[in-house]
């Protein structure tokens, strides 16, 4: 069975890409092994303390907490992009593995398909 790597590269809330990407990941987890890699401003999806009450949109960042229940265990982000944004893993809602360039290349190679969002 093909494994799928989901790559998330958009920040949350400014567009619906992040939310619809997460929907696809949750659906994918019902079918096959799915992992997720956060790159670029996609890392900002994981920042904890997002509060959308005043914005008036759904705070889907909370849904990342359900990834474990859905069997998504391969959760990684780009280390260079983390550093470039002055973030560290403690800023995130969930446990995330950081990968350097070689690690990311291997992560992609280890999956059969890639879906980018």
């Amino acid at each position, binding site marked *: 069975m093909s494994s799928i790597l989901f790559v998330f590269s958009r920040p949350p809330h400014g567009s619906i890409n992040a939310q619809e990407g997460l929907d696809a990941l*949750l659906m994918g987890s*019902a079918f096959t092994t799915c992992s997720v890699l956060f790159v670029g401003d996609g890392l900002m999806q994981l920042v904890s303390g997002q509060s959308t009450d005043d914005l008036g949109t*759904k*705070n*889907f960042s*909370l*849904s990342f*907490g*359900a990834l474990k*229940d*859905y069997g998504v265990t391969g959760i990684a982000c780009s280390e260079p992009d983390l550093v470039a944004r002055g973030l560290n893993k403690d800023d995130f809602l969930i446990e995330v593995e950081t990968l350097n360039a070689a690690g990311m290349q291997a992560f992609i190679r280890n999956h059969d398909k890639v879906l980018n969002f």
Partner: protein
Amino acid sequence: MTSNPETDKEGFLRNTDDWNPAIAEHLAELDGVTLSEDHWEVIHLVRDYYENYRLFPANRVLVTKIREAFGESKGNSIHLMKLFTGKPLKHIAKIAGLPKPPNCD
């Protein structure tokens, strides 16, 4: 509280903020279901799950969560099908006052 909350033609609350336990009883009765303790276990579980994760749990996730909370005898799809009518997840969402799921299963 109103005894006749506004619902759409499928019986989903138009405004999920209208939900309260009495309305759940009312919505269930319209479908010929009397809510028992077993029903309430599931309703509270999915409402808590939604509150925590902004997600209605997928069937397999819901079954696992029920098994963890209420034991092996209840942790299966058959238990849910006995309690709720039609497509169980859709029916649970309706009675629990959670967003109407897209019609995609």
